[in-house]
């Protein structure tokens, strides 16, 4: 199956993509490649450009520089790329005067592969009231509607921007369970920007760290989950911290010191470096791993 996916090419490729808004340089040369069938989490602080990157992939924004290819197509402003992408924005917007049914009906006229039965089934499975008007719908209802709109045309690529933002726990669970369902469908690629990435811990294949306007680090999610450690002990007087570690110092208030090492190699090197006396390594919860990873940035390349 991997060979089959590889034969169809990557889901998308970014090469030196730049984008500015006035004097604010948001993306400063993003280069990355997403293979088909993978679930990729995009991690980054607020304002790093996650949404900008997603909109560029959706052909809603133009890159100032660099090359973009999505599902073998180059964005040209025509919107044809969006025929094959399912997108759930952070703040879904629909025509206020329409009902949920009318929203779906409108989309059915635009998407060539729209499946009305699938839409109806999804809506039913999410408990979406199709007669409810958008103007009076709750955040949860709007989120469910957005999800149905994203999935009903059987897209090859899902782009999810904080798909559970502002939702209560029950709705989040409903939406996430749909996400997992899609994972079971071969060939779908999911690219999700989510602050609560730990909610996807079990399904992520890769985690991309967007920092300083570039993809500063691509981590294998399974390896991260398995190898991330906290290395702690007493700080040695004379030993120096080894260079090139995939690690973040957690505390350095003498005599105690601690690092978060994101791979086993970095943990081993720390343990053998002598920088810490009496060093001990312990497993790091995935949630904390992701939180610490945000601090990594490009400083530790």
């Amino acid at each position, binding site marked *: 199956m991997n060979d089959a996916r590889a034969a169809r090419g990557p889901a998308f490729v970014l090469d030196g993509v730049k984008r500015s*808004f*006035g004097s604010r340089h948001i993306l400063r040369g993003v280069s990355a490649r997403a293979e088909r069938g993978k679930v990729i989490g995009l991690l980054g602080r607020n304002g790093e450009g996650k949404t900008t990157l997603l909109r560029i992939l*959706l052909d*809603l*924004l*133009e890159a100032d520089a660099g090359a973009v290819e999505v599902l073998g197509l180059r964005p040209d*402003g*025509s*919107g*044809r*790329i*969006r*025929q094959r992408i399912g*997108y759930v*924005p952070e*703040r879904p*917007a*629909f*025509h206020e005067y329409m009902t949920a049914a009318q929203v779906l009906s*409108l*989309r059915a*006229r*635009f*998407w060539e592969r729209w499946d009305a039965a699938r839409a109806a089934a999804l809506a039913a499975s999410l408990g979406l009231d199709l007669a409810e008007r958008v103007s009076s719908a709750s955040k949860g209802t709007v989120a469910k509607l957005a999800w149905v*709109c994203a999935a009903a045309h059987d897209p090859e690529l899902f782009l999810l921007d904080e798909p559970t933002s502002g939702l209560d726990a029950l709705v989040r669970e409903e939406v996430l369970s749909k996400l997992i369902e899609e994972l079971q469908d071969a060939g779908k690629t999911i690219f999700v920007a989510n602050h609560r990435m730990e909610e996807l811990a079990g399904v992520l294949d890769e985690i991309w760290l967007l920092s300083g306007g570039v993809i500063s680090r691509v981590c294998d999610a399974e390896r991260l989950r398995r190898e991330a450690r906290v290395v702690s002990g007493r700080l040695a007087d004379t030993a120096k911290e080894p260079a090139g570690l995939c690690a973040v110092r957690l505390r350095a208030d003498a005599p105690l010191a601690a690092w978060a090492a994101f791979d086993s190699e970095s943990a081993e090197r720390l343990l053998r470096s002598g920088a810490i006396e009496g060093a001990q390594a312990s497993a790091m919860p995935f949630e904390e791993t992701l939180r610490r990873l945000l601090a990594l940035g490009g400083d530790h390349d």
Partner: protein
Amino acid sequence: MTELLSLELRKQRMAFLGVAGVFAGSFPLAVVCARSLKQPLEQTLGGAIVFWLFLGLALAAAVLGGSAGTGLRAQAEAEALLPASAEERAKSAVAAAWAYLAALALLVILASFVQGMGWKLLEPDSASGSNGLVWANAAIFSFADALICLASFVCAYGLAHGAAGGILGAAIGAAAAAGVGLGLLTSLVLGVPMGFSRQAVVIAAAAMAAGVWGMLKLARSIERQRKGWAWAAAALSLLCGPALSFGSAASHFRKAMSLRMLDYDLAAGTRGSEATPPSALRLEHEGVLLSTRRGDVLWISPDGTSRNLILGEDRSLKDILNSPLWSWQEHAWDADGRLWVLKREYSTATCDIYRGRPRDGLTLFHKLPLKQCPSGLVQRGREMGLRGWNPLQGTWSYASIPERGEKFHWTLETDDHGLSSLEALHRQGLAAKLDKNGRTLRLGPAGGGRRWQLPGAAVIGKPGSEYVPAIATESGLIFARAVALSSGRRALAVCRPDGTVRLAWEGSGADSYSVSALPDGSRAGWRDTRTLLRMTAAGEFLPPLDVGPAVDELLKRMPLAPDFSKIVRFDRESVWLLSGDQWLIRLSGRDGRVLDRWALPDTSAMWKRHLPAVHLGIDGLFVHTGARLFFIGFDGSRRSLSVR
């Protein structure tokens, strides 16, 4: 695109319903106004419809366009994810706005038909012809309103503000339409047969295309948050319409003025007296005189030979604005067949009098200060004079034009120019005078005192009617006057040089004996609406010719102008009639049958400008269409004459 259009129609529905509601409400309002102001209901309803055509649709266009623009902007987030480009969405929005505007325009037209005006609401001047003007006006209004809608959309979309966008768009669209209107009016006001319709179409197409182009650039820029020149491009593209229209109108005006300078009209002339000999009349009709706004006086022969008798000069716009009648000239022919031209030059305050024969050229005969130059040239028999009103004295003055270098001697005259002329002719022996009993006709001392006893009594009415002007024939001067016979009938008493009196054209008491001189020296006229009177240049009075059957036949076949009465030539075999400057008709000179008829070139452009279009020549007619000069022979041949 269809789906997008459908979506936009749904979104803009309320705006359209609002405007349509205002339209519908204007009619009850008109009824209320009619009652309260005590005006005819038809008038107020018609006024409401005219308002909607000229102003209402334009305002509606601004509202619909502005609403569409802000609507598209407001729903950008909801619609951006649709698999359609920003340009397609913008195009659909504009198309929907235009569709609603067209629907409203149809409602206005429908209301016009219900109210009874029909297409007349598009015809400011229904007497000037309907179809072309209707379509031209419809095209202009369509362009103006469509451009206003587009401009309002672009401005509202760009500014994300419906009201500001609507106002800006209305101003831009109205400016572009105003430029087109000025261009079209130029031809009308200046009377130059130089159309602006083609330029108007090009301007409209270019303005719309530029506006759409700018709109698409702006849409892409806004939706995709592109920095760059799109905003400037959109603004420039919208200004393209007004710039093109005013620029074209200005260029058209300059060109029209230039052409108008060179545009020639049949020169205004004073008709000589009946005493002008046939030989002199022939000289007068050997060609045609043309004059231009520049002050040129041209003499054109039937073979197309052109001679510039007086050179004009180019005028500046300041000259034109300061003195519209900067060069007013008139001409007259004297009894010797010489041409006199009076040219007033307001810019230099002078008055030049030229004299000469066209084939030899004219020379400057007198030059006067403009203040001393009265109304115009008058020919009184063998005299050529100037006659004018003196406002300070409140009287008319006359002076015979003296020889070169001599002074003008002015005499006061009464208001009655005709009486003064007849008295002058009598002094010259060129008019006889009836005794009070109307039975004796006498010449004055200059005529040798000859007298004739008339076989009947001539009626003497208002002052001057006691004079009988001479008619110059090849065999001398004759005097003719209608007299009442003892039988109760009337006839023309012809007093001949040998002292005899003969009767001609005896007829009933209601007959007319008015005849006019023709270029070959003959005379012709109508006794009634069906009988022609003819006198040859030799003085022979031909029997009246009954052309009634011919008139009936012609009336069946073609629309004849009310002035179906001008005889332009005759010989023993044929009579030629000019019907309303549209037809040349040849009748048999023996039995009045129609022998030939020829359609003349279209001269409607000239009569619209209240200018003469036809000048009689000896062998044909000079016909001026406004754009070209033709010579139509009495055999129906047609030749286009080059003036320059």
